[in-house]
């Protein structure tokens, strides 16, 4: 197996995520075949691929939400169930009913539930942690708002705050940038970088090819199998993208064009904001 070089600062400690020969099938039709993946500590991995490539499926399989047909997954050298408190999760925003009768604070407090165990109520310190996380995503003034009264970007920030409240070492994020405004997008990426600087590992499903190389230091190009995986500059090539997107050149040319235009104008997403 030709695994990419591992840049783990503590060579003896187990990898945050190791996936070996993973195959996942929905009603006998495979969605992911033979996935091999080793994620070193402190990296931000962007999972990129066309619709139906199995990006969300991979995240769900890692957490044991879907039955695995073959292969294995280890989180910090253990099965997911044993490492559950070390993994934070940001699901897709559309996966929940935002009319649910809870406020932003209630949602963020759920991030503490995993550490509480059964029979225990959130303590004062749990509430303080939740407040701090809300503050970090600049949502503290909205703590008492019912979640349906928040904008899409604000809802996404609440989800991020809930994941922060989990105080985990590995974060799995499913499309955190979908349907958010530019301000939220840059706020989220700032928080992701901060988490990285604290030595945390992040795996982020992403759909926007134009921003992917700016946001991630590693990229997993996925289309039901691993098309390419490694450092962004090695993976994000025309040829690999063409392989992943299966000759859908219209998308590629569109992306290439918009990237070229952005480079010409010197516009990074941060510059676009102000």
């Amino acid at each position, binding site marked *: 197996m030709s695994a990419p070089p591992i840049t783990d600062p503590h060579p003896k400690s187990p990898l945050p995520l190791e996936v070996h020969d993973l195959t996942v099938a929905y009603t006998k039709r495979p969605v992911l075949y033979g996935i091999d993946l080793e994620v070193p500590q402190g990296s931000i991995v962007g999972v990129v691929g066309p619709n139906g490539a199995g990006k969300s499926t991979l995240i769900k399989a890692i957490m044991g939400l879907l039955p695995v047909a073959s292969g294995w997954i280890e989180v910090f050298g253990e099965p997911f*169930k044993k490492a559950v*408190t070390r*993994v934070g999760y940001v699901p897709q925003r559309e996966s929940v*009913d935002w009319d*649910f009768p809870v406020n932003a604070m209630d949602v963020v407090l759920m991030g503490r539930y995993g550490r509480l165990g059964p*029979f225990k*109520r959130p303590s004062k310190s749990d509430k303080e942690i939740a407040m701090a996380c809300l503050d970090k995503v600049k949502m503290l003034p909205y703590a008492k708002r019912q979640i349906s009264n928040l904008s899409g970007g604000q809802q996404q920030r609440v989800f991020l705050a809930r994941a922060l409240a989990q105080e985990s070492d590995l974060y799995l994020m499913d499309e955190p940038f979908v349907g958010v405004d530019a301000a939220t997008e840059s706020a989220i990426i700032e928080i992701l970088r901060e988490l990285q600087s604290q030595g945390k590992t992040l795996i982020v499903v992403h759909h926007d090819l134009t921003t992917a190389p700016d946001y991630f230091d590693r990229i997993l190009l996925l289309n039901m199998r691993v098309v390419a995986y490694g450092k962004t500059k090695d993976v994000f090539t025309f040829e690999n993208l063409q392989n992943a997107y299966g000759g859908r050149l219209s998308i590629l040319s569109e992306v290439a064009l918009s990237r070229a235009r952005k480079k010409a104008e010197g516009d990074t997403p941060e510059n676009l904001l102000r």
Partner: protein
Amino acid sequence: MRSVLRKGRDRRPVGPHRSNPTLNIRTAGPSIPTLHPKQGAFFALSLIAICATSSIAHAAKIGDMSETSWTEQALDFLSLEQPVVRTAVLGTLLIGFCCGVLGSFLVVRKLSLLGDTLSHAVLPGVALGFLWNASKDPWAILIGATAAGILGVALVGWIKQTTHLKEDSAMGMVLAGFYGLGICMTTVIQNMAMGNKSGLDKFFFGQAAALSTGDIKLLSIISLLTVVLILLFYKEFLAISFDKGFAHAIGMPVQVLHYALMALLTFAIVVSLQAVGVVLVSALLITPAAAAYLLTDRMHWMLCLAAGFGMLAGVLGAFVSYLSNNLPTGPLIVLGATLIFVLALFFGPRHGLLTKILRRRRQRQRIALENTLKAVFYLCENSDFERREFGVSELAVERNSNLPAIEREIRNLVKANMAGWIDDSNVPALSGQARFQLTKEGWYRACEIVRNHRLWELYLTNAASYESDHVHDDAEETEHLIGESIVKRLEARLENPIHDPHGRLIPRRDQIIA
């Protein structure tokens, strides 16, 4: 058939009733739970209001009853002296409580149809439980019904998994299929020559008086179980209801919790069947919870409210059933719940329809008041800030309106303590000669509104690059909506401007009266 709860109207001895098989009265065993007098008083109080509303409908239905006997009936019920009344009240209270609490989870999880499916699916189980020893043994019926309910839910899951049919179709089919089977079985049983067969028809429409002491015991156990489990696992139930995937990701046993909730729900349905009936028990699950959902934005308050509404509806149904001829409890309980829902729909403090209308009206009145103040400011500004007193006719010209309307507006200002009449005793009200001035509060508010208007115009022209002749209409609306915090930000952004894009003064709050 007469209402089996009714016994107070003609106080014949209880004996003959007991021997009459068609009436099926389960009267006082010695072990009937008794209520403390204080509790009785509480029920009485909460029900007096209900008496008032139900009396009209009641009088229309039962013409042969005189006013006194109706009152006697009501008092008879409220005194809770008769064991059968106590059983019915206690039973419907517990049923309303369980259904309200558990139904809340169905409503927030968008599983309302599941309640319907479960309640219909249990009917064959009820029939089987009855066949067990040819009597209405609560435990046998509970076991049979629970088995049938779980089989129904499992079938729905299986159809969903193996075909590409969606859950709602699967539920609809299972519901109807099980119900059809249940009707056939109960009809066969009722036609069989078994002695104690009359109880089964109560399962269709419900009769609170058909509750036995055994049923009450079972109900109490289920209610206690519900309370204990929800208190112990509130955060787990909340998490799996809001975000199943996340609950799984943090290591909660999602499936176990889900089936625990389903089992509780089945128990609640089974014990409610006799009082509410198969057809309507799902309404008792959904309606109180839906009313609570309209009134609150927090799950724990929703649970409390739904439990309260369920209990209220339950007692209401039992009460009206006691007063009326031939009316089964189930439909009355459901009507009570529906009444509560309608009240919540119209009068809810946040989302109520009537509340919204009133709020909109108050908003319109406030805007009218502020526009009048603004016009007064313009009059003052036109006099180079010299004059402080103005005539009604002047203001009518400025506002481009008629005298009576303007006078009404000024009277509203006076009522709001923002203006006062000058010499109002001497001048006829509608002559247009009456004069007024603004109070300190009136001037403050007038300056604020004009400031909002002109700040917004300036912001639109400077920051949003609007043409200066396009900004007025937008500012006319926005001036009423922006609060002090936005004003501060606007002032900071525009570097504390003094003049608007048309060169007019942007007044400070105390521009006129320092």
